[in-house]
């Protein structure tokens, strides 16, 4: 018997003005040990299909199916108890929005331990040790501390990895991974995918990976289903799909995948005006608790150390780096949403560090941000139209009617139907939410935008649309953007220069083309090396660098080759070419 047997699945949601059908007539089977990738457009029903399989949909959902079997249990009419028994054991799920998927008032450790103990007999202590092992496996380096962290203390990527650890700790027969690596940098993504594959082999686990990243598909799965507008439009082995796509949509997906070419840098205009945004020596220190026997001790955790960064007018600067390296924190500090421990923030040459009230509000109007976690960045009790129109409302622009009109226009510009205007955030797919957040940030026509992973949940087609939009705005309105992303191909095609962060520090900074052409820092090199393949036939085993290896490979430069640096054992940023900075140890 197949582990998963879905046939004729139809899911619709009750909505004002008629039900919306999210999934039509979806059928597929999956045997034990097999792996299936589901790719498709944002909002095409990928998540809904899997949630239906686990019977986790909201109660507004109406689920019909000829057959909906999981591990020989009919999901449609199993009892609540039988479903609880099934979940986690037969199938575990990695959710698309890891940042809202954790219970905010329990520590990560408690939540993983609880999972382990639900499924296996284990003492608290043993479970805690196992949880720590799992966290280490998903590349969370300070696993022991993270166990006692609460969800809000983790970065987006760390939460995603904790989510993965939690799902894997169930040791399920089937793992459903809904966009498991969107918040991860490519190095870690590659390690995680490898981990999942090895566990799959080890435990004979079946796998469903939902993703919009064909690279991930190419690397991990045997079969692929392509979804488009609520239907499976094409299904086949990885090779078949990649080599011989049938559907127009599939073809366009593959086409866009291969199109990731570096953009031509604009002619360097001599810019005399102050940069749009400048950060000088920003640092952020968090106090964290660490358990020490029965007592707790408080430690300083340096999330960001002495980061300086310049965002020139009308330019896009990419900020990339390891998950948890402090990118979001830097972005939040630049927006004055997180108070920096030290450093200055200059916008158009003005230090906004001390501004308050109306003065700050003036700057806010020109500076916008897209949050990494788009779900929790949307007020749950407001409709999308209200959310998108809110900036206009705050700054008292236009009449309420016009505000709504403009909000609906913006919905269309980010590829959503106007009817979404009266939906609430929880009624959207991951990618749809992200687009709403982008629309809100853009509606005021800002001159500075900090975009934290704005496209991580978007499939290539929508991503292209959004990026096109951003480029257009950059040209039309002189938008300058700090673009935080793990998606190196987007970074490559969109940004003018790139800043690489590693463990709270800037380790390299260069014009985009130059960085991709000749990366200098070992971490940058590792990062570029880890970009997933675009063709399943090119799969390869990778080797990863440990932190020690990276540290020991830090470039050493002799003092003679650079002008103003003092020699010392601590690495420092030095300029090695015009606009190309790298962290290195300066020797005599």
């Amino acid at each position: 018997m197949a582990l998963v047997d879905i046939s004729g699945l139809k899911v619709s949601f009750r909505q004002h003005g008629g039900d919306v059908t999210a999934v039509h007539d979806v059928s597929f089977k999956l045997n034990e040990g097999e792996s299936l990738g589901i790719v498709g457009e944002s909002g095409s029903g990928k998540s809904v299909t899997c949630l239906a399989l686990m019977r986790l949909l909201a109660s507004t959902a109406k689920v019909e199916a000829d057959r909906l079997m999981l591990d020989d249990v009919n999901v449609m009419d199993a009892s609540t108890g039988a479903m609880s028994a099934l979940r986690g054991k037969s199938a575990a799920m990695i959710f698309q929005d890891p940042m809202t998927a954790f219970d905010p008032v329990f520590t990560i450790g408690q939540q993983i331990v609880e999972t382990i103990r639900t499924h296996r007999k284990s003492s608290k202590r043993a479970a805690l040790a196992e949880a720590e092992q799992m966290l280490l496996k998903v590349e969370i380096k300070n696993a022991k501390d993270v166990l006692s962290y609460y969800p809000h203390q983790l970065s987006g990527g760390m939460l995603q990895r904790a989510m993965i650890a939690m799902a894997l700790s169930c040791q399920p027969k089937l793992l459903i991974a809904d966009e498991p690596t969107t918040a991860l940098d490519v190095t870690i993504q590659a390690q995680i995918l490898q981990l999942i594959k090895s566990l799959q082999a080890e435990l004979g686990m079946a796998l469903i990976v939902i993703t919009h990243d064909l690279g991930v598909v190419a690397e991990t799965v045997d079969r692929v289903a392509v979804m488009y507008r609520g239907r499976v439009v094409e299904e086949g082995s990885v090779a078949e799909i990649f080599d011989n796509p049938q559907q127009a949509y599939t073809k366009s997906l593959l086409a866009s995948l291969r199109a990731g070419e570096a953009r031509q840098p604009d002619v360097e205009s001599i810019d005399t005006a102050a940069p749009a945004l400048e950060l000088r020596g920003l640092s952020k220190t968090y106090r964290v608790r660490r358990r020490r026997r029965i007592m707790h001790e408080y430690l300083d955790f340096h999330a960001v150390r002495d980061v300086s960064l310049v965002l020139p007018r009308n330019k896009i600067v990419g900020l990339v780096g390891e998950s948890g390296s402090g990118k979001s924190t830097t972005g939040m500090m630049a927006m004055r949403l997180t108070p920096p421990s030290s450093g200055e923030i200059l916008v158009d040459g003005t230090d906004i560090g001390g501004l308050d009230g109306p003065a700050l509000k003036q700057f806010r109007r020109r500076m916008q941000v897209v949050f990494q976690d788009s779900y929790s960045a949307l007020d749950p009790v407001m409709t999308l139209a209200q959310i998108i129109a809110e900036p206009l409302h705050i700054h008292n622009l236009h009449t309420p009617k016009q505000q709504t009109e403009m909000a609906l226009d913006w919905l269309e510009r980010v590829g959503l139907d106007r009817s979404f205007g009266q939906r609430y955030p929880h009624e959207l797919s991951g990618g749809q939410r992200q687009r709403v957040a982008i629309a809100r940030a853009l509606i005021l026509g800002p001159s500075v935008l900090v975009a934290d992973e704005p496209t991580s949940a978007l499939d290539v087609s929508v991503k292209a649309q959004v990026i096109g939009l951003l480029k257009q705005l950059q040209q039309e309105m002189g938008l300058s953007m700090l673009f935080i992303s793990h998606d190196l191909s987007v970074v490559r095609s969109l940004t003018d220069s790139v800043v690489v962060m590693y463990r709270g520090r800037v380790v390299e900074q260069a014009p985009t083309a130059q960085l991709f052409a000749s990366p200098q820092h070992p971490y940058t090199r590792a990062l570029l090396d880890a970009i997933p393949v675009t063709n399943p036939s090119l799969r390869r085993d990778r080797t990863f660098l440990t932190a020690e290896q990276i540290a020991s490979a830090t470039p050493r430069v002799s003092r003679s080759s650079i002008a103003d640096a003092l020699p010392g054992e601590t690495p420092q940023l030095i300029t090695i070419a015009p606009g190309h900075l790298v962290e290195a140890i300066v020797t005599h």
Partner: protein
Amino acid sequence: MTTETDVALAVPPAYVQRSPAYFALRRFLANRAAVGGGIVLLILILAAIFAPLLSKSDPTAQAFLKDSLAFPSAEHWFGVDDLGRDFFTRILYGARVSLTIGFAAAAFSVLIGVPLGALAGYFGGKTDWFIMRLIELFSVVPPLLGAMLLGALTGGGFVTIIAVAALFGWVGVCLLVRAQVSAFREKEFVRAAQALGASPWYIIRRHLIPNSVSPIIVGFVLSIPLAMMLEAGLSFLGIGVPPPTPSWGQMINVGMNFVFFYWHMALFPTAALAITVLATTLFGDGLRDALDPTQKGR
């Protein structure tokens, strides 16, 4: 083989943009208990307003002294009280006083409690310190003592009762809103609003209070019976609503003396109070659910 064209759109066909209030109303109307509560409440309010039309007799005239304490009958639906007044009429007119006191006190405790709680929760620090001391002050002074002083200053009566009920009723609402707001303050969507340049007051009004609507509604509903009972208690201190103006609280107090035999004297005012509160509860629950979009359709 499917083609792109026959793929259905995941959107409803006809589309008109509606305001969230419209949906809240629809959700509310779909909740039968809540609508029922609302209707009962409306009837009570209308009955209080149009009391003279519903009963011909005067609530203070002792027109039926011969039949005093008579049990309910066709002529006197709720019987006659100890002073020969038609009890139904008394209950009707009592609604005027009691509903006004109950709702005014509840409204005031929300009007005072919600902004203060939101300020304390949002700003924390000195603001919170100051408001917390204020809360402590009002929760340690027994309402009785406060009432006596206020009574001495104002001579008592209707306004004093509302003032006392409001002064001592807002603390609970305030604490809950403070807790809720300080929990929400760190949420991303609040930060998002900050990033848009929203003023603290705007954030409180547009985001934090709508997200705290449940404790506010519950607090509102709970303060109604408390205010009505306070009114009953205060009338003994000489600063209640002076007789012969009927109020339910007072009627319950008097009715207690008669409960062993003349049950109607205690039953009807208590029932009137209970029905009011129950109706308000159901109405409030419905409102709460209607305002919470995640409950949609359940």
